[in-house]
């Protein structure tokens, strides 16, 4: 029983078909304990459609006859290669798009790299901005090559931008 559980765990844990087949042949197909967890032929037949269900009820010949007479109604067996072509083209396009997007994003990332931090004596620092004792939204703008620092502060408005 314990042995079965371990093998079942190994069966589920390594979903590689040859390995699973090996376990099936070596153990599960012979073991009565494991076999008890599998539906038998009779049980399967109870839920499956059977030949008897369609005997006399499935008259396919008229459709087949008209299909044989009409070449246009032939099943398109050549559809598969075309499908493969379409799939390959779609995959190639997706790869190309991914490559273009990656290059573009990478460039954008490089461009948005933070500017080198100014030396400590030139750096403007501010701990907290409050208006009426409440934390306020603050925006700091420091033009490049200028000693000027602009600070815009406004009251926080609940549920939206001011």
């Amino acid at each position, binding site marked *: 029983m314990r042995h079965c559980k371990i093998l079942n765990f190994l069966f589920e844990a390594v979903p590689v078909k040859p390995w699973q087949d090996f376990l*099936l042949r070596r153990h599960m197909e012979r073991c009565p304990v494991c076999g008890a967890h599998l539906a038998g032929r009779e049980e399967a037949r109870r839920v499956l459609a059977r030949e008897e269900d369609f005997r006399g009820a499935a008259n*396919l010949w008229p459709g*087949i006859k008209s299909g044989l007479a009409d070449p246009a109604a032939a099943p398109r067996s050549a559809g598969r290669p075309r499908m493969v072509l379409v799939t390959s083209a779609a995959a190639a396009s997706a790869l190309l798009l991914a490559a273009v997007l990656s290059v573009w994003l990478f460039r954008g990332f490089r461009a948005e790299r933070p500017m080198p931090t100014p030396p400590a004596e030139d750096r403007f620092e501010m701990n907290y901005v409050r208006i009426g004792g409440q934390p306020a939204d603050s925006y700091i703008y420091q033009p490049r090559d200028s000693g000027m620092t602009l600070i815009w502060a406004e009251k926080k408005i609940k549920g939206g931008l001011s």
Partner: protein
Amino acid sequence: MKAPMSDHSPTASVRDGGTPDFEQIAVQFAAPAMALAMNVLGNRQDAEDACQEAFIQAFRHLERYDGRSGFQNWLYTILYRRCIDVIRKRKRTSRLYQRAKLEQSRQAEDPIGGPAAGRPVGEGILKALNPQERTALSLWANEGYSAEEISRVIHTSAGTVRVHLFHARKKLKAILERNHEALQNS
């Protein structure tokens, strides 16, 4: 149980240089083909379409049948591919739901499909299995096919078929037990 892979030799006349009786072949193999298609597709209209297309394809390319594996097995191979095509098409168009509804109403009115032909074929249960599992289970339970024989129909290795069959039987058993318990509790 039927002898699997038996060649009913419907195409013997072709090998003898004659013309086969297509109608007789279609009548002879329609019921087992419909059963397989119904099990894979779970929908009578789709099953009929797939069967008709499979027969047409088989009859058009009868010269390709070499007689090694039995006509029924060869037909099943074609039918399986048609069924997979139908499933692919279904996925693409996402019309499964509408189809199922339409099918329900059609089955209710179906004059030829008696209670047996119109029965839901454990539809909910079979939905838990994938197409390969449903095919393997159907051929194993209904036709008595071995893993090697099924592998020739679905074009895969016998080992893979054994795994599909194992999963199918395990899922089926679990569902049947769950249903049984639910029935007892109610």
